[in-house]
């Protein structure tokens, strides 16, 4: 199918790749279908485009890009809803806020996106780990890991 988007023009979407969010995202409960794709080579940022609203797209990043030791404990309820059989079936992303000064981009680890990549199910969960904040300065953390 083809969808019209504000950012990418007409986008060809393979229906098998659509991720279904039964509950939508917080504040976007009506939108249940998204497609995730890479922006450009050598860029860890990904796009998550809403299928049913061409104007809506989020930027995602894998938390492992800036926190090599990242881990997330999923609630039983989330595991059930995502029909997860094994941790290997999981992809985790953080939603990115990109301000005008892009070096100050932040990732939200308090409300990560968890995907069952086999069944193409997604959910925005709430992390109960107090180290997971709403705003993690991505580039600062990358620098901190090296320095």
């Amino acid at each position, binding site marked *: 199918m083809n969808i019209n988007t*504000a*950012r990418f023009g007409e986008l060809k979407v393979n229906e098998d790749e659509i991720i279904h969010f039964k509950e939508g*995202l*917080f*504040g*976007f409960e009506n939108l249940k279908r998204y497609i995730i794709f890479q*922006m*450009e*080579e*050598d*860029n*860890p*940022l990904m796009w998550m485009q809403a299928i049913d609203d061409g104007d*809506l*797209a*989020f*930027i995602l990043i894998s938390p492992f890009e800036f926190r090599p030791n990242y881990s997330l404990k999923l*609630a*039983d*309820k989330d595991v*059930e809803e995502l029909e997860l059989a094994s941790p290997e079936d999981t992809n985790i992303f953080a*939603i*990115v*806020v*990109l301000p005008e000064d*892009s*070096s100050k981009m932040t990732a*939200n680890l*308090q*409300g990560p996106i968890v995907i069952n990549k086999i069944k193409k199910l997604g959910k*925005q969960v*709430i992390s109960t780990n107090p180290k997971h904040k*709403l*705003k993690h300065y991505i*580039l600062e953390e*990358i*620098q901190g890991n*090296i*320095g």
Partner: protein
Amino acid sequence: MLVLSRKKNESIIIGDDVEIVIVDIKGDQVKIGIKAPKSVSVHRAEVYEEIQAENKKASSAPKQLTGLGSLFSQFKKK
């Protein structure tokens, strides 16, 4: 909305398996205990609101993101 008065150590039952206990009251702060099955998620209301607001901010992502890849490699090299 149903409003009930409770004293310290008193509780409310919601449905068959959720119990809310008033553990302690000090000034304007109430300590609440929640007994619920694992399948029920319990969070402070602010957490939902904050994540909602953060999602809203994230949704106004710019159209062009060119050059961001090089920004990452720049920081990785530093």
